């Protein structure tokens, strides 16, 4: 693919949005305003951006517990996202469920599960429904982590995806760990290979190279969309922060973390832009704009009221 400045500026804008958004979430968490735990994806932003820039608003999505980027990229309003993070009534789910469980029907985001592995069978069901509807265009993009692929559900659902031929794009964000457990200590098989067992088109790429993710996804999404068949893409990446906001991640070495920080997808993209002649001022301006968007969202969230209990919630 030829170098396209505008595309790289979009990569940068979107990844920077996620980074800034999560920095704000972290600040809120430090101030004790985030209920429960929140899972940030610092270092992994290229995975959401590279894939979802190829996905239409009318496509469906199932995100993960580490899904802020996925949810923002699918198109959810930044203000409503931010308000949800701190449990405000103006949040996209009325503030009921917070960071881990964002659903946004207006952009066909079907909801993230706090139960690792639960999304696989549901994804098959969504694919089945698309088939039954005779859909020739819409697909589902279904995200999950490396750790999730050890749940029996994963394999079972891949088999179902194969025999029912569902138009589902399975995207594994492989950040090498599930909490404190290295994937390689839990399974001897590379993740993308697991799908090939089930005759499902499967591939992998550097998840910190946003252009690579973008190009690979474009190709696979095209396959899923036109062939109406499942496919899987494994994105190798790394979270340079802890599993949840205040996890000190002692299970990883400093060196490993520092190594990966050097591969930061945002930094890499900026470098490419600069190298290709984009003026630094242009980049600064773009960032400034995002900063304002996020600051405004934070202000909006902070000023919003908490939800009020009402008896109609009883079931």
């Amino acid at each position, binding site marked *: 693919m030829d170098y396209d400045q505008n595309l790289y500026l979009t990569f940068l804008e979107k990844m920077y949005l996620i980074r800034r958004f999560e920095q704000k979430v972290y600040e809120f968490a430090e101030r004790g305003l985030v209920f429960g735990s929140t899972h940030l994806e610092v270092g992994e932003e290229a995975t959401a951006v590279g894939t979802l820039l190829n996905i239409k608003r009318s496509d469906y999505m199932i995100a993960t517990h580490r899904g802020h980027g996925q949810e923002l990229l699918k198109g959810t309003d930044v203000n409503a996202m931010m308000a949800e993070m701190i449990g405000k009534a103006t949040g996209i789910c009325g503030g009921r469920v917070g960071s881990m469980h964002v659903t946004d029907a207006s952009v066909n985001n079907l909801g993230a599960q706090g139960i690792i592995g639960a999304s696989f*069978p549901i994804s098959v069901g969504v694919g089945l429904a698309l088939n039954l509807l005779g859909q020739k265009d819409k697909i589902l993009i279904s995200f999950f982590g490396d750790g999730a692929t050890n749940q029996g559900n994963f394999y079972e*659902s891949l088999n179902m995806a194969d025999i029912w031929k569902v138009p589902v794009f399975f995207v594994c964000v492989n950040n090498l760990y599930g909490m404190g457990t290295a994937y390689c200590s839990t399974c001897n098989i590379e993740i993308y290979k697991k799908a090939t067992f089930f005759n499902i088109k499967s591939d992998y790429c550097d998840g910190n190279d946003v252009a690579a993710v973008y190009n690979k996804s474009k190709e696979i999404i095209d396959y899923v969309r036109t062939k109406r068949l499942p496919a899987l893409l494994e994105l190798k990446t790394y979270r340079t922060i802890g599993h949840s906001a205040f996890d000190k991640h002692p299970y990883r070495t400093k060196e490993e973390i520092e190594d990966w920080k050097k591969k930061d997808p945002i930094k890499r993209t900026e470098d490419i832009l600069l190298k290709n002649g984009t003026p630094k001022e242009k980049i600064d301006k773009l960032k400034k704009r995002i900063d304002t968007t996020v600051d405004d969202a934070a202000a909006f969230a902070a000023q919003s009221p908490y939800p009020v209990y009402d008896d109609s919630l009883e079931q």
Partner: protein
Amino acid sequence: MREITYSEALREAIRSAMAKDDKVIMIGEEIGQGYAGVFGVSKGLYDEFGPKRIIDTPIAENSIMGAAIGASLLGFKPIVEVMFADFIAVCFDGILNQAAKVRFMSNGQYSLNLVVRLPGGEGSGTGPHHSQCLESLFMAIPGLKIANPSNPYDAKGLMSSAIYANDPVLFFEHKKLYKTKGDVPQEDYAIPFGKAGIARAGKDITIVAHSYMVSVALAAADELYEKHNIDAEVIDPKTLVPLDMQTIAESVKKTSRLAVVEETYLRAGVGSEIGSIVSERYMDWLDCPIKKIASRNVPIPMPASLVGEVIPDKKRVVKEIREMF
């Protein structure tokens, strides 16, 4: 009126909904080409509606439930057949953590039309893995509705409602009922959830029973009346969630006595819930302590010699109720 079986009544409701609304589908093991349902409920439907509407699956309950949840999120109205209610354990996460919570967690952005058919209860020696009555467990999970028809008429009417309930419905059927017959109108009708029926009017004691135990309670009531001069009122809640406490209360007000008969277990059973509500709200109306007549806390055995002691039968119901007078 025309008599048909409980199985046929269920099928009629499903068939009619499928004919009118192409979003209604069935998903399960052996429901189409194989057995047409182990209890024959989906007989003929595969031929009529084909593999896109009557969806056979591998032995993979998690995928069955996931398929139903996913399809329901996209506007379908799936009817899942879990071959035996006991197997719901395999896909319990789909029930507890996904289906039941969609409406709440999405802040009402999504709600599910999703019927989970659960053939439960003991059926002549089906044993510990194929006999359980699990409805009391599920009462404790907000976000689910629970239907439990005791006869063909209710089976058809409750199914018609369940398909459009706009919340997941656990539809507990009973092995011993499938072949029982009863009057069922040909035309469509819906029985509302949360409205109990009076299976037998009486003045001396209120017996609440659901599913197959309604017939046991009715047989006991006959004997109590004929031999012991006790005139029992038998209430069939029809749905355990929502539960029509008003009808039960009105009956208790009249009779001043309450017994709950159930095939679910004694501990934390339906009788515990109903009994405790009555003692919370209507204690003054009672002339004697309530009585819970339920399965003993034992996995369901195979041989009749043990089953007869574990699960309530007419004899035990008569004996226990006589002790209340």
